[in-house]
């Protein structure tokens, strides 16, 4: 099964896919922005400030999802010695980092009208900041180390340490008294958000997921060409 994921076999797909993903992303984002900024209702308590949720929440979800995927791929790659998994993980990291920054900045902007402050050293916000630092360290490790064996070991250790932070982020609002509100959307129980707000939230999440797929494909293709460039040097 892993052989199906060999770069030589999937490059023909990954090299053609970005233009279709870009088109789909623009369509879904346009629908999402119309829903989020114009059609969705204002909140009875937060008024229009609630619209920040449509960029803040999807960005946070995707940042968490990408870091979990990077950890999973790094561990599998290290156990089964599959270099391509490290390459996929490396290509996912830039969009994960940018989504993490978006979640922090939009959260800070949302904090001002709702809590009266741009920043608080609250458990949820601080743990998200720590995740951004793990992303940064992970990306820097790829720049600093050149020896592949050393690089795979170090990036795996970084992701394993970083993944401990993921449940802390998720449950921080339940474990500690925080300014940040508890989760409004639960997979196992009924969500406390009305469907008129859930719909734009899911559309924006789909748009953000498409954008991270687009960046991943472009970055992955770049990494493959980089490897091929080294191959041509040896010819």
């Amino acid at each position: 099964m892993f052989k199906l994921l060999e770069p030589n076999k999937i490059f023909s797909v990954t090299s053609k896919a970005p233009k279709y993903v870009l088109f789909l992303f623009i369509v879904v984002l346009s629908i999402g922005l119309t829903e989020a900024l114009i059609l969705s209702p204002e909140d009875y308590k937060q008024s229009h400030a609630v619209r920040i949720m449509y960029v803040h929440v999807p960005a946070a979800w995707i940042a968490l999802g990408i870091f979990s995927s990077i950890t999973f791929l790094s561990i599998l790659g290290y156990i089964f010695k599959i270099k391509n998994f490290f390459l996929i993980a490396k290509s996912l990291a830039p969009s994960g980092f940018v989504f993490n920054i978006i979640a922090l900045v939009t959260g800070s902007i949302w904090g001002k009208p709702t809590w009266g402050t741009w920043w608080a050293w609250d458990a949820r916000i601080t743990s998200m900041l720590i995740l951004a630092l793990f992303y940064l360290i992970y990306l820097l490790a790829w720049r600093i180390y050149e020896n592949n064996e050393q690089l795979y070991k170090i990036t795996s250790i970084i992701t394993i340490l970083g993944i401990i932070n993921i449940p802390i982020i998720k449950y921080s609002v339940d474990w500690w008294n925080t300014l940040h509100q508890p989760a409004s959307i639960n997979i196992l129980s009924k969500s406390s958000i009305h469907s008129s707000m859930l719909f734009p939230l899911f559309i924006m999440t789909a748009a953000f997921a498409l954008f991270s797929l687009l960046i991943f494909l472009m970055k992955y293709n770049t990494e493959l060409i980089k490897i091929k460039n080294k191959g041509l040097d040896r010819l």
Partner: protein
Amino acid sequence: MINDIFLMNGYGIYVLSSFVFTLISFLSLYFVVKVQYVRERNKFIAKFGNLKSERAAFAKSQIINKEILSNSSNF
């Protein structure tokens, strides 16, 4: 109507700055990654052009190299 969209009961500055920041981040990341892609692809094409005919034929026999050369105008 237009005023309502932009002012949003006084929250417009917060809402719109969040959306603008997100879109600027998207555009910046897209262009940074695109520039890296184009740079590597151009490097590949230049190196390929410098190969002697025998070596170029060998390199071209690899599917992935053929794909890189044929997709030189992609996105």
